[in-house]
């Protein structure tokens, strides 16, 4: 009966959506900058999953190529993000996202 259930693209899409939402909520809830970063990664992954699912669904290799590019972007982002975090931490002990609000209007 488990096998009886047909594995369709929707399953993947639903899962990707859930993952994306968890990432988004995590980003909003957590105050630790690093964890927020991880949540962003999670959201990116959800997007990649969707791309791949549609790549197979629509029989178009372009989807996978795009995933490739998001990977690159994610990597670059993490590199620069963590560098910034290190710079901030060097200035102030244990800063959370709320402490960093010098750019106030």
């Amino acid at each position, binding site marked *: 009966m488990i096998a009886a259930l047909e594995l369709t693209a929707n399953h993947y899409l639903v899962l990707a959506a859930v993952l994306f939402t968890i990432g988004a909520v995590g980003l909003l809830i957590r105050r630790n900058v690093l964890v927020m970063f991880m949540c962003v990664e999670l959201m990116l992954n959800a997007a990649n999953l969707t791309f791949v699912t549609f790549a197979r669904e629509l029989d178009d290799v372009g989807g996978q190529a795009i995933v490739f590019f998001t990977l690159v972007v994610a*990597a670059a982002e993490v590199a620069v993000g*963590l560098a910034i*975090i290190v710079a901030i931490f060097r*200035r102030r002990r244990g800063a959370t996202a709320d402490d960093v609000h010098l750019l106030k209007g």
Partner: protein
Amino acid sequence: MEFGIFVVFAALALAGSLTVVLGHNPVHCALGLVLALVSVAVFFLQQDAQLLAAVQVIVYAGAVVVLFLFVIMLLGVDREETLHEPIRYQRPAALALGAIVLAEVLFLAGRTWATGTPSARGPLEEDAGYNNIETVARTLFTDFLWPFEITAALLVIAVVGGVVLARRSGQPAELVDEGDAATGESGTNAGSSPSERAPAGGPALSRMAPPAASERDTEAAS
């Protein structure tokens, strides 16, 4: 069988992501992230995206998460954190919005509003001797050549950025304690820096605009 794998790894992915979001200790979060990434890689495999699965595991799970752990250890923030939330409306709003977005996406997913027309990139499934890596590579270096080169430049920039930021600046950057020494944990906002007066327009115009009242930051509690 196919479906069994999907269910198992879906559960693992969800568990991983939840630990990322709810983990007290950042290290646990990092590990949760690894779990999630790997399960996604499995899904890639299930959907004939072997190259991506490999890249995912190597780049993402391997490099990115390791970098995270490295930074966590470097900064010594691997302590337990209380999930206290200073901004009153932040958490409920986040949950509500998350639910709404999820509901909307699922509702929309039900509608086949996507155009649905096969793009002209070229078929994924060719004949029997189909090789995913070869197909992806061919599209990458033909249709997507130009973006490919740009991402190369992007990576270079990222590296340079990382180096510049992390470099110790000329004079020793003393630890500047803005306002009171209360650590982030105490939750009260760091002493708000006095917002400087609205910059007076040129002297000739100064008496024109009625003097911009230097507004105290209304939120600052202390």
